[in-house]
Structure formats: structure tokens, C-alpha cells
């Protein structure tokens, strides 16, 4: 029988092919080629959604078995209790599932942007992230374990769904801001390139130093930093070619603003649902848990982005830089907690 992992493999293959076509199309630049790639990634997205639905059911069976073993009672098929237990374990409750879910959110946001605005490069970047996430997930422990008692709550649904889309939209906003900065300058001075290189090297070693060891996470984060660096260097050597391929400034700014605004509103939902859940489950609506605090920092960053734009008229490079900063705060607030950069808290669902 097909398991969720089969579906995830098919979906990863679709994303890789779509990514390949998108990259080729940067030079080729044909509308029908772009459509093929978009259709392919949409198909991959559907497969992933189906895979997650199957994973949900698989987790439900594990829960059912665990319930029967732990309580020693048999559950009648299709009774109310049966449905309650089968559905209580959504496919976003451990690190493996969260990574896959994040890539799902990333592709979801990217597909919406692609259909709405057809921006070049953004599709490549988002698919690259999604493929990396799926790649890392294949190295992560994928066994389904019964939920810990604290997570058996309906709040987990809304809380995590909004978090995934919020982080993905923020990431896309940051990518768009990054392209904006590249496009806005006629020529990047060599001093900036040197600065970026030093920052990338210091940043990647910093990540490894903070974490103590080299893990796949460090490597992929470092890889991502260097991928950005390579892109910046390419823009330095082929300024006219690459800049002509980057979408227009107006469009990039619009995409960045829309995505960050959506991320801001969804982060508010994440914070509030988290607070309500914590209040009803543990009696405290806010506990300064590192991940909670990280989410609040992201929210504050985006609040700053919106305020500077509206009242100080920081449209353009200045606001784009805050947008880019948001991505690093997302990485620190979302991944950093799981990678053990900060003190441990409630949200550290494994670091393997």
C-alpha cells in the first residue's frame, strides 16, 4: 500500500523538476515553459497535501493502537470516540512533520504569488527552500509516535496552520525584498561584495559555533547563506543580464508588502491562539518561552516594517532591508529554538 512517504517522494521529484524548468526558463523565457513548471509544482503540491492527509490517517491508527494498549479497552469502529482519536494527531506534531509542513506552506504561498504575479527568481528561491526542507526531512526520524498529553488539543490545528503560512509568507517577502535591493542598485560596489562574503562566512561559522557541532541543519543554513552570496556575486559580474531578468521594482515592492502584511496578521493569530491554548492547558497565557518570544520578535519586526512604510514613507531599499531582516529573525525564532541556540522550552520537539 502507498504510504505518506511515497507521496512525499513523488512530490519532491515534482518540485525538483519544476525547479529545473524554472531555472532553464530564466534564459529561455517562454510563457508556456513557465506554465509547465507551475503545473508541475501545483501537481507536487497536491501530492504533498494528499500525503499529509494519509499521514494524518496513519497517525490516527498509531493513536488508536496506543489508546487500546494503554487503556486496555477496545474501540468500536466508527464510534464517536474512534473519530476523536483518529483525528487528534495532525501531521504537524514532530520535527519531521513540521519540516514537511513548512515546505508545504512555502509552496502554497509561492503558488499563490506565481498565479497572481508570475515573478521570476522568486519561484526558483521558494522551490529551492521547499526542496531543501524535503531533503532534510528525509534525514530526520520519520516514525510516528503517539502525541504527548499536552498536545492533545484542538488549538494545535489553527495555531500551527497559521504559523506555517505566516513564516512562509514572511520568507517570500524577504526574498522579494532581497531582489528589490539587488535591482535597485545600478552596480553593487566591490566593498559590499566583500562585506557580504565576510558576513556569510562569519554567519555560517557562528551558527556552527553556537550549536557546537556540524549538523545537517547547520550545513543547510550555511548552504543557503552561500547560495545567496553566489547570487550576489553573479549579479556583480552580469549586472545587466540578471537585473533585466529580475521583476520590476514596483512589483517586487508590492509582493514584499503584501506577503509581509499577511505574515503580520497571521503572526497575530499565531500569538493569540498560542496564548489562548496555553491559558486553557497550562494556566498561563504567556510564559516567555523562547519560541513564543521569537514569534513576538517577528511580529514586532513586521510592525516596524509597516509603521516605517506608512508614516515615515520608507518605501524602497530601507523597508526592503527590514523585510530581509525578518527572514533571519524567522530562522532564529523558528529553527534556532529547535537547534538549541537558546534555552529550552515547550516548543522543542526534538533535535535529531
Amino acid at each position, binding site marked *: 500500500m502507498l504510504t505518506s512517504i511515497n507521496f512525499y517522494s513523488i512530490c519532491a521529484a515534482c518540485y525538483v523538476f519544476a525547479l529545473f524548468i524554472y531555472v532553464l526558463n530564466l534564459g529561455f523565457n517562454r510563457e508556456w515553459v513557465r506554465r509547465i513548471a507551475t503545473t508541475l509544482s501545483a501537481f507536487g503540491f497536491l501530492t504533498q497535501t494528499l500525503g499529509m492527509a494519509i499521514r494524518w490517517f496513519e497517525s490516527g491508527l498509531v493513536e488508536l493502537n496506543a489508546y487500546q494498549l*494503554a487503556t486496555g479497552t477496545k474501540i468500536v469502529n466508527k464510534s464517536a470516540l474512534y473519530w476523536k482519536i483518529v483525528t487528534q494527531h495532525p501531521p504537524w506534531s514532530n520535527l519531521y512533520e513540521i519540516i514537511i509542513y513548512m515546505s508545504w506552506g512555502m509552496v502554497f504561498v509561492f503558488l499563490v504569488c506565481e498565479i497572481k504575479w508570475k515573478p521570476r527568481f522568486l519561484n526558483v528561491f521558494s522551490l529551492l527552500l521547499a526542496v531543501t526542507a524535503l531533503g532534510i526531512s528525509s534525514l530526520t526520524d520519520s516514525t510516528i509516535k503517539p502525541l504527548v498529553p*499536552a498536545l492533545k488539543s484542538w488549538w494545535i490545528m489553527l495555531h500551527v496552520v497559521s504559523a506555517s503560512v505566516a513564516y512562509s509568507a514572511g520568507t517570500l517577502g524577504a526574498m522579494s525584498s532581497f531582489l528589490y535591493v539587488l535591482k535597485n542598485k545600478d552596480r553593487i560596489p566591490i566593498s559590499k561584495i566583500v562585506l557580504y562574503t565576510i558576513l556569510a562566512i562569519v554567519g555560517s561559522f557562528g551558527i556552527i559555533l553556537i550549536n557546537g557541532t556540524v549538523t545537517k541543519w547547520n550545513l543547510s543554513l550555511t548552504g543557503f547563506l552561500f547560495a545567496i552570496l553566489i547570487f550576489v556575486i553573479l549579479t556583480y559580474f552580469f549586472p545587466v543580464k540578471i537585473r533585466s531578468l529580475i521583476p520590476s521594482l514596483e512589483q517586487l515592492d508590492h509582493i514584499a508588502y503584501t506577503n509581509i502584511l499577511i505574515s503580520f496578521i497571521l503572526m497575530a493569530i499565531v500569538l*493569540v491562539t498560542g496564548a489562548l491554548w496555553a491559558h486553557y492547558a*497550562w*494556566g498561563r497565557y504567556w510564559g516567555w518561552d523562547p519560541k513564543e518570544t521569537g514569534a513576538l*520578535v517577528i511580529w514586532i519586526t513586521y*510592525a516596524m516594517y509597516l*509603521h516605517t512604510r506608512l508614516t515615515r514613507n520608507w518605501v524602497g531599499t530601507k523597508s526592503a532591508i527590514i523585510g530581509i531582516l525578518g527572514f533571519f529573525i524567522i530562522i532564529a525564532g523558528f529553527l534556532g529554538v529547535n537547534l538549541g541556540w537558546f*534555552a529550552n522550552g515547550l516548543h522543542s520537539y526534538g533535535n535529531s
Partner: protein
Amino acid sequence: MNRLYALNFRLFVSLKLTIAIFIGLGIALFSGMFWDQTALLEDHFANITSPIIAKIFLLFEMYDVYHSWWFGVLILLLALNLIACSIARLPNIWIDAKRPLKKINDSIFKKASQKKVLNVKHLKIPLFSKNEETWKENGIQYFFYEQHPFARCGVYIVHSALLFIMFGSIIVTQLGISGLMNIQEGKSSQNVLINNAGKINKLHQLNFLVHCNQFKLKTHTDESPFEYESDLSIYSLDDNKSSIINKTIKVNEPLEYGGYTFYQSSYNTIGKPKSINISVANRGKDNEDKFTNYHIQIGETVQIKGTNDFADKIKILEYFEDYANFGSAIRLEHDNSQFVVFKKYPEFDAEVRNGKFNIIFNGLDWNFSTGISVTKSPGISIVFTGFAIMFIGLYITFGMNQRRYYAKAIPTSSERFELILAGICNRYPQAFKKEFEQIVNQYKFL
């Protein structure tokens, strides 16, 4: 004095201050993430050797950043900033929204983000919308239409929601209580250990007794908890015979009494295990599910229920925490043979061993104490009201878009008009541009 007041007011209204507070808050929040805010002061000082750093650490209360004086100052500044901005800007916006200047003049035309001067033959009425206002003055036809006039107040609704949340939070942290109770099975307690990051924990005395009648733990086969619950009763201090309230609390299912809420949060085992729990069933098709539970001490021999034979006795010889990496196990003696039963593999005994009975090792019986987190949060309703207001405000701010359309039609000859169109919109300029172009395009072929 007035001047000082004006200076202060100007400072608090400025957006520079807002941005400075945002940056300050971001740094403060991040710095708190690096230190475990739940650790004791001694734990922190175990890692700090330099006396200067220790002094700075104490001065800035880094063991409890989020309740430190400087974090409080930041929050206070933010609150003042929010209030000052509302006082400075809201009245003008309100008056403008209530009584907008409807007649287009040069300054409006100059300010407008979208404008067009057309020469048209006849007007398409309604020009902008059914709800538009139109009037004639000195032969000139004026038009005015505003959509969502009060949407600009949404920002202030969000800001007031934040003030609600901050105010509620201050009440919760100042007047509220958050701590832990550890109660042994069969015992009562009225003491709550208050969490006090970085400082010595305080005791809070309840004015009633909490009694734990029973603690039940169900585990998975790998001994991780599946579900745990405490059967609690509450007694008044002078009468401990009849309970006021009884409830079984689970994780996510608390008990509320006297303004306090009791949450099942953890559990501990006390002392040595009481006994070993095994289930035994007769073999054979009819008896497979008919297990009987036994609680036996190590070295104790029991007669299996429903049998008289001397051979139908079971004796537990030894307990292993981890038997050859297969997890916890016990060695038993039955019918002159010794064998091992594993907790992780309940079907192992039935498959491998011959004999009259199936034996399952359920685990150890412990004396438990239940860990209950106790909170009292007055003012929490203010925080939640703040949440609700915030979403209403966010919807008004970002979901509704205030737009103003102006027009005037000046007859130039007997048949033609000069139509001056203008539109003002602060948010989503691209969408507004398209909308405005649609209106203009109606006159393209006329």
C-alpha cells in the same frame, strides 16, 4: 512648564521613538532568549566567573529580563507613545472623517494620488458609486464619494487593543499567582510554591485544602506517559470531613475553584516501588482476553486465582531496569522453571514460552505525588478583550480601505464638459490606480 510639556509631548508623538522602542524591545526579547529565564540565580552564577559581568548581570536583572526594571521602562514608553499618538492624531482624523471637505479645490487636486482632466460630451451618472453626493454650485456640478470613511481609525483600535493587553498583563503579573503544588496520593496541602525566576521561591497559602484522592498514570509500552489524571477534592480549613468539590483533572482539563485554577502538569514517583504489576491469563482460545491483575512484591509467591495446584504459583525473583537492551523486565519462577518477561513486548511470553499461563508484565506500582500548577489570573479577561479588539482593529485597518473620490464638471460649451477627477487613497495604491483607471476608461471613446 508649558514648553517642557510640549517638548515631552512632541517626543512621545514622534515615530522615531516608536522605532527606537521596537528595536529596544527586539533586543530585549532576544537577550532573554539566550538565558534560561526559569533557572535559579545560583545556576546562572555557576557559569559566570568574572565579577564585572556578574554585576552587570545583576544590575540589568538578566535572570528575569521580562520582569526587569528596564523592560518595564520600555513597555511604559511604548504605552505612552501609543497614548500620545492617539491623542495627537485621532481627533483630527475623526473630525475629517465625520465632516470631510467635499468640494474639490486646488490643494486637494494637488494632493491627490490619482487625477485626470477630461473633456467629455456627457456624464455617466453615477460617476463613482450609487452613494455618491452631488450638487450644483454656480453652474458647476460637484461630486464626492468616500468609501469606508472610518477605516483610518482602525489603527487606533489596534493600538488601544495593545493597551488593553498591556494593562491586563500588568494586573495579571502584579495581582495574579502562578505556582506549583506537589501533593502525595491520599494527602492534602494548602501550600503553593510560587515561581520566582532568579530568586528564592516563595510560598503562597491557599485558604482551603486540596486533597489528592488518587493519581492514575497510564503509560505506553515504552513507559512514556499516555495519560495521567488526579482525583482531587477541596476541603475548607476547619471542616475536613465533607468535601466542597470533587473533580478528576487531566492535562488540558483543569479544575476551577475560588478564583484559582488547578492544572495537571506533572507527576513524581516517591520512594521505592510499592509492588510489581503483572497480568495472568489461562492459555487457550476461550481465555485469551481474561487477564487477572496481580500486585506482587519481589520474592513474594502468589497462588493464581481459580487454581489450587501447588504448581500454579508464581514467584517474582528479580526486577531489571534494562534487560539486555530490551527495556525493563522481570524474572519469574513458575512450575519449577525460571523465565524473563519484558514490558515492551507483551506478546513475547505467549509466543516463546510453553506453559499453562500467559504472563504480561505491566510495570511497577509506585507511590505518586501529583504536580499541579496553580494559577490565579485576575485581569485575564482584559487581556482576552484586548485580543478580540485587536482582530477587529486589524480587520478594519487592513480589510477596509478608505478612499475618496472628487469630481467637478464645468460646462465649457453648450454640449461639452471639462471633467476634473481626483482620488485620494493611503493604502494599496496599485489597486486604487487600477480602480481609478477603470473610471477614466469609461470616457475613452466619448
